[in-house]
């Protein structure tokens, strides 16, 4: 992966340049290697062969020269004048002939004629120091001479040997036939004669050739100046170097154009893409009049941008449409929820549907027949009393426009909404009815109960005051009076609750001073507290005037504080007031018996009384809570558990 990243981090321009450079280097390397190794070898081989050929040619020429000399000698030996050998060449005719011939041939060649005894009869040169008595072969080398010996016979009798003609060829002469020019050197080496070696400078290619017999002791050398021999290679190398430099130059120029024509458009593509990503502006376009791949890429890129823009626009339009239909739906639901009767609901639903669907062909029917090419919204409503579903009817939508996808689900949710609203309405109606029934029952019952209890109370009080009864009867009558009193209190409480529930409590809002009111309440309750040995510590001081119902407020406060006194066997009760946001909170903290955590849930229920203390009607807190609600507030009860005291918070608000 690292390697890949590295590869990718190299720019295209560099890559192309490197690629071309590598190709050129490989080509150059191969060519250079080939020329240095093979061409060199081939040329050297060729040159060596050339030298060999030259050497052979030279040897051939030398041999021919010697053959020519031999022929000359043979010619001489055949002359009739050779018969003079018999006469010891007294007339010097042979000598003269030899001298003339030697002079003609030049090259310091010496001719001699010997008789059968090996004695020199005639010669082209005086004072020949050689002894010819040992001559055995036709051709041999003695001292510095190549010697050709030809027997001479009498002209008149070819069987008669009269002597020998001897040709002495100085070996030194061979040198004169060698050519040294144009960097090609040739020379002879031998143990016999000191030949001259040409002065050679620098490295050479050399070929050695042994002479033909009987000159086999002589070696012909041919050498050529290596610089001259390999001139071609050196030329090619120079050419190659120049070509290499030109190639690099051309590549650089080429890369320059590549970068201009290939990399720059790609760069501009990249920059445009970057710009679009950064700004989200899809109106940008790249201009290119090229017809090649880059041009195609640019075109495709532009098309891509255009398509993306179109897609984005259509998505935006779509989402706007969805948003609108969602808003429509919400509005529809909102309107529906405001209806208060079944008939209203269906009428409003049809009106809204007409608006939504933009059609007038919507109506409600209880007819169960099918409609063609229409969408049927069945309004099924649950009857809670009988716990079953019943069909109210059908909303028929003719030719529903296919504007909304998932049309079926959309219509189903509308149908469900209508059903829910109708169910809600019917539930509310039922609830109202129940409440009304409860209140009227309670007030009726209270009223009906109050009269007999009034009679019981007044009669029992009369009996108590008449004092004609003995102690036991008096006690019984006292119990009757007490129970009737309790019953009356219960009935009054129930009546209060019923009034509160049915909203029949009249509120008289006026400005009161809370600390002042608290003080008044404490004045009433202090005797009760003192009788129990409980001390009330009031921290509510200063001035706080709010709009509220002073009667209800007082009832609640009295109720709560008396509760605290009631459930506190001994100790203090702290009163404090706090303002939180718009709410005012009065904290009533006692150190009484506390409330079981299980019981806290039920303490506001009507007729509920704690497990520990069982006196009172059990309606006090329920009434207080209801009054607190009427005063735009609430009552909250905290307790850590049984025996840990209770904190009751009365929350209220200004009207």
């Amino acid at each position, binding site marked *: 992966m690292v390697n890949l990243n590295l590869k990718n981090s190299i720019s295209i321009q560099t890559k192309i340049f490197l690629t071309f450079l590598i190709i050129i280097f490989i080509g150059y390397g191969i060519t250079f290697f080939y020329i240095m190794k093979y061409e060199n070898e081939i040329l050297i081989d060729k040159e060596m062969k050339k030298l060999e050929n030259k050497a052979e040619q030279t040897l051939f020429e030398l041999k021919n020269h010697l053959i020519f000399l031999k022929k000359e000698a043979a010619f001489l030996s055949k002359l*009739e004048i050779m*018969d*003079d050998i*018999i*006469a*010891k060449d*007294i*007339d010097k*005719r042979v000598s003269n002939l030899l001298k003339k011939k030697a002079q003609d041939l030049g090259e310091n060649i010496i001719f001699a004629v010997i008789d059968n005894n090996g004695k020199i009869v005639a010669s082209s040169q005086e004072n020949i120091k050689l002894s010819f008595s040992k001559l055995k072969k036709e051709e041999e080398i003695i001292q510095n001479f190549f010697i050709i010996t030809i027997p001479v016979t*009498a*002209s*008149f*009798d070819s069987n008669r040997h009269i002597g020998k003609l001897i040709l002495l060829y100085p070996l030194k002469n061979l040198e004169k036939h060698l050519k040294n020019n144009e960097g090609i050197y040739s020379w002879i080496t031998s143990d016999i004669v000191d030949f001259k070696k040409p002065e050679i400078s620098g490295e050479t290619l050399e070929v050695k050739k042994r002479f033909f017999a009987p000159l086999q002791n002589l070696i012909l050398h041919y050498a050529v100046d290596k610089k001259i021999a390999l001139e071609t290679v050196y030329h090619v190398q120079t050419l190659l170097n120049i070509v290499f430099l030109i190639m690099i130059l051309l590549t650089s120029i080429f890369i320059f154009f590549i970068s201009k024509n290939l990399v720059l458009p790609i760069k501009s593509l990249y920059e445009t893409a970057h710009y679009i990503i950064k700004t989200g502006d899809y109106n940008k376009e790249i201009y290119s009049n090229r017809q090649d791949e880059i041009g195609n890429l640019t075109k495709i890129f532009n098309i891509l941008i255009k398509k993306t823009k179109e897609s984005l626009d259509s998505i935006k339009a779509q989402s706007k449409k969805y948003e609108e239909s969602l808003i429509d739906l919400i509005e529809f639901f909102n309107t529906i929820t405001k209806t208060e009767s079944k008939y209203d609901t269906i009428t409003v639903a049809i009106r809204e549907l007409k608006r939504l669907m933009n059609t007038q062909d919507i109506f409600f029917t209880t007819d169960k027949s099918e409609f063609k090419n229409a969408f049927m919204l069945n309004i099924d409503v649950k009857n809670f009393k009988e716990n079953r579903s019943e069909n109210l009817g059908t909303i028929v939508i003719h030719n529903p426009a296919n504007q909304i996808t998932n049309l079926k689900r959309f219509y189903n949710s509308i149908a469900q909404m209508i059903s829910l609203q109708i169910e809600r309405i019917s539930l509310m109606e039922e609830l109202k009815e129940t409440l009304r029934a409860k209140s009227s029952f309670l007030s009726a019952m209270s009223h009906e109960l109050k009269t007999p209890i009034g009679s019981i109370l007044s009669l029992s009080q009369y009996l108590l005051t008449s004092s004609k009864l003995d102690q036991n009867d008096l006690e019984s009558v006292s119990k009757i009076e007490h129970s009737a009193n309790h019953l009356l209190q219960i009935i009054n409480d129930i009546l209060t609750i019923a009034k509160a529930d049915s909203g029949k409590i009249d509120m008289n809002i006026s400005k009161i001073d809370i600390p002042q009111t608290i003080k008044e309440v404490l004045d009433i309750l202090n005797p009760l507290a003192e009788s129990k040995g409980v001390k009330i510590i009031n921290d509510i001081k200063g001035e706080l005037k709010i709009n509220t119902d002073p009667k209800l407020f007082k009832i609640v406060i009295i109720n709560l504080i008396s509760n605290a006194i009631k459930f506190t066997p001994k100790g203090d009760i702290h009163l404090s007031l706090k303002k939180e946001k718009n709410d005012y909170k009065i904290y009533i903290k006692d150190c009484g018996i506390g409330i079981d955590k299980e019981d806290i849930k039920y303490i506001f229920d009507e007729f509920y009384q704690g497990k520990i203390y069982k006196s009172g009607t059990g309606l006090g807190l329920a009434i207080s809570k209801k009054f607190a609600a009427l005063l735009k507030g609430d009552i909250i009860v905290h307790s850590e558990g049984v025996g840990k005291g209770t904190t009751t918070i009365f929350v209220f608000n200004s009207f």
Partner: protein
Amino acid sequence: MKWFVKLFFILSASFLYMYADSLVIAANRNFPVDSLNLKTVQKIYLDKIRFLGGKKILPINLPYNHFLRKKFENSVLKMKRFEIERYWLKTHYMGHRPPKVLKSQDAVASFLKSIDNAIGYLEKGTAIKYKLKILYEVQNGKSKSKK
């Protein structure tokens, strides 16, 4: 001019005749015969006889202008120069060649000394000097056989 040449020859001939030694036909001591008559000598020198005693005879001549050759032609062959030339020209086509020529009397003598079957004409003194066998002798223009 002709007369001058003739005069010169006559004078020289007479001079030689007066002072020169006598002309002899000589050969090696091993030559197969001991003497020759004039006719045989003539025939040998005109290549009419090639063998004597089973051996090939090799006559030796002297150069063209040698005084002995002239004397020999006059007194032995008894032919004129042009006659001799015409003879050799005529017989050339039949395979006959004029005798071998050596340059000097000494050369002839030393040649005869080593070649058994050669004959040559020399002055008598020379022949004796080289200890050659004298086969025929010409005296004072008259040829005389030893026999």
